[in-house]
């Protein structure tokens, strides 16, 4: 941890943001028909679970949830990936014709999202892919934007934004490290 840490969102703030995003997802897709949530490991996967719970509370009926590990689809593989184990991709259903809501914790350069979209395409042809993120911190390097945003946070490139999870993988707070 660096000495200069600011809390951007607390637990209840995150919860309200996720509830609002759930409503927006339902509004945009006119319900849960054909909607599936796919979280990007690891933070996005935890948030996808939270969104699914919130959607069930609002609408009733379960939304399928999957997770995707983007290690194999990175564009910077030489620089760090092969030292570390590859995470698991768990999509227990076909994405053919589904409205996929891709979930990530922090949207930054957009490269992770690009990799995740490539990964999804290997599991069928979705009707569409929408993007939900808890934090958009700017600095895009690819033409990618989020459909659902918890909070826009202007940041400098030297800063780091992190979503902190507890041991049950529930979001606790969002912090900005300088």
């Amino acid at each position: 941890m660096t000495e200069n840490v600011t809390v951007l969102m607390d637990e209840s703030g995150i919860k309200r943001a996720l509830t609002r995003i759930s409503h927006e997802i339902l509004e945009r897709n006119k319900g849960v028909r054909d909607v599936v949530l796919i979280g990007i490991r690891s933070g996005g996967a935890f948030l996808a679970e939270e969104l699914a719970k919130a959607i069930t509370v609002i609408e009733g009926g379960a939304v399928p949830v999957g997770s995707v590990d983007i290690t194999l689809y990175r564009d910077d593989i030489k620089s760090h990936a092969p030292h570390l184990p590859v995470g698991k991709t768990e999509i227990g259903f076909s994405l053919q014709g589904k409205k996929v809501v891709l979930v990530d914790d922090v949207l930054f350069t957009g490269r992770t999202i690009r990799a995740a979209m490539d990964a999804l395409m290997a599991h069928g042809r979705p009707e569409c892919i929408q993007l939900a993120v808890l934090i958009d911190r700017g600095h895009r390097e690819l033409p990618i934007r989020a459909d659902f945003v918890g909070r826009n946070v202007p940041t400098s490139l030297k800063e780091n934004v992190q979503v902190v999870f507890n041991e049950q993988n529930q979001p606790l707070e969002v912090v900005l490290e300088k």
Partner: protein
Amino acid sequence: MAEFKHRNIIALRDLTKGDIELLLATAENLREINSRDIKKVPTLRGKTIINLFYEASTRTRTSFEIAAKRLSADTVNISPSTSSATKGETLADTALNLLAMKPDIIVMRHAVSGSHYHLAKKVTCSVINAGDGAHEHPSQGLLDLLTMKDKFGRLDGLKVAIVGDITHSRVARSDIQGLTKMGSHVYLAGPPTMMPPAAERLGSVTVCATMKEAIQDADVVMMLRIQQERQGKTLMPNAREYSRYFGLNPENLKLAKPGAMVMHPGPINRGVEMSSYVVDGSQSHILKQVENGVAVRMAMLYHVCGGELE
């Protein structure tokens, strides 16, 4: 979990327990790709892999090639009949010529034990051992470990019997290295003519006088192939006699634990080291081994790409 720092994978003897755990964990997670409709990920796009096989192989070469292609690498196969080795070129010269074409990984099988260490000194790309003489066959060792781990959820404390031609078996050497590092107990049995002098020095293993002793209460029975190409006619009187004393059949399999796994690195001499009843029986995991081979080799190719110069 540990980071993988090796540029080459030549022997399980050279890897730590952490390295092996990492390779198995990656293989478990890569396995899902092999059951997709589109069995390909772009991870090793632009990498060139040369499969240099000085000895005959169907399973291992195909498995390495499929593994490379599923990761989007480009593969070239070179076999002895079509290579300049038949024209008298040395391994070192072949290696330098191949290196001039800028491969990223050379996967080699060679009849001479230790030839990969020689190769690795000559080249700057990664070297993966697909079997060298009677030394090691690390990808087979890893896929055996993965297949056992799938069934038992652990390797620690398992009793594994390895039966057959230990002297000539590189599979046995890799299995012994891998299994003992992961905490399994290894028991060896085979005809005295096929047991290397001081076999107990292969690792912390128990050398048994009879097959019965080795497979008694075993969790896993690993049968080795009689390597007719590597031995003269003097090591066993005939296949029938071998089968009688060191063959696995439904009768002696009952000595092992109920539901014990039966494994074999292939190709099988049916009726010699194993009866067909066992090969095709419910305890046989032979085809599962082959299936896991692709995932394990994907993990090896993936991790050596991030390795550092040793």
